[in-house]
């Protein structure tokens, strides 16, 4: 008769050490702006997720690198969407404050479990 239960069961993430969620504080973010994808990939490598073409707004048609944090103390300031000088050593044409809105998911949860 074939057995229908798992023969061995290994867990690598959960277990006695309770897992903590990634509940980090929100931080202000910036993104490097590139004229084209090759320039972006010179800085960030070939991972397609790290260089995105901008679909709309003042940088439409350009490429954004990944979101960057902790640049506020390096002279980066300005209104959301405005472009500042590129960071030294970067192939970008500038750096911009990245407008990211949050909280657009979760309002339907009504304090219920999402499971069924």
């Amino acid at each position, binding site marked *: *008769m074939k*057995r*229908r*239960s*798992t*023969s061995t*069961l*290994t*867990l*690598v*993430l*959960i*277990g*006695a050490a*309770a*897992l903590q*969620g*990634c*509940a*980090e504080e*929100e931080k202000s*973010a910036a*993104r490097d702006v590139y004229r084209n994808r090759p320039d972006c990939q010179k800085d960030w490598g070939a*991972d*397609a*997720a*790290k260089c*995105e*073409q*901008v*679909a*709309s*707004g003042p*940088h*439409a048609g350009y490429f*954004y690198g*990944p*979101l*960057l*944090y902790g640049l506020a103390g390096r002279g980066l300031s300005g209104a959301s*969407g405005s472009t500042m000088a590129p960071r030294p050593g970067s192939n970008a044409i500038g750096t911009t404050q*990245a*407008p*990211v*809105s*949050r*909280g*657009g*998911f*979760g*309002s*339907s*949860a*009504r*304090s*219920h*479990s*999402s*499971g*069924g």
Partner: protein
Amino acid sequence: MERLASPPRKDWQAQLESVGFHFHSFEGAYWDESACYRFSAAEIDMLEEATADLHAMSLAAVRSIVERRLYPRFAIADWLADHISESWAAKAPSVYGRFDLRYDGRSAPKLLEYNADTPTSLIEAAVAQWHWLQALHPGADQFNSIHEKLIAAWEALRATLPGIPPVLHFACVKESEEDLGNLDYLRDTALQAGIDARHVYIEDIGWSEDASAFVDLEGTSIRALFKLYPWEWMMGDAFGANVPRARLAVIEPPWKLLLSCKAILAVLWELYPDHPNLLPAFFEPAPLGERYVRKPYYSREGANVEIHGPRGVYAQPGSYGAEGYVYQAYAPLPEFDGNYPVIGSWIVGGAPAGMGIREDVTPVTRNTSRFVPHYFE
């Protein structure tokens, strides 16, 4: 199928916590190993076969709904209807689902509903009752290969994910220990399949209008998302309509919404009348006479279910039902020592994978219904 008294392990709470199952005493008593269910191999064969048949019928039903564009019947917004059609045409992959079955060990299992989008009770079924089996019935078997089938399903999915290694974000709501426990278990199995499985709470997901992309708290673009958050809730959220714009790959995919909506019960009966694993179901009560069960399209945890039975109307409170109702033939759950069990039969990677049993002292299975382990010989 019989219900047996079973002495709990002395340190059962610590045993459960050691495998990541921390919400075992949710609402006072959730995991209950003071009893168990014993099955014969022939009964498990029957449940496994019914699960495979229901899965095949469900896929055929989705195809029929998409071809006929029956979306208004499911109260689905236009933007999501198109997204569903596209996801079905693209064969967007599914990982798992759970059929809830009425089964008494004598007659054929009957489908009560299909938790196709955000099924939970997963770590209980896959891990907790497996360890219980090893401790108390090491020579017996259990209908439970969920763990290895999950890892295999993720391995099959890897090639569809972006990034090297493939990246998949896992999201659930804050403030639900149960959801986080289930999600972390899924993430564990995805990691074992070589996926960079990252956690983000659904409330923390950001939207970059410029990039038309969702981002996590690190600012990394979210290209593929496993969400333990129902599609019908996403439909009503401010970011919902951004999902197609972001070209976001979502698991479970949009087409699974059709199966998690209880309107699917009427469509299945229309397509497969008199199938032994289905109960008659309609969009109006008249064909069923005076005895039926009214189920809101999108209710969860038994909320707003009304049983119109021989003793009158038994109604569960709740806030669901605005989208519509389906009417299913009255088929009372079997009673074992004053308890009413429902079989939760898992489909993982397209194959029957195992089961968990929830039982209640009322005829409606609710969020607080207890999980009772099983074995077969």
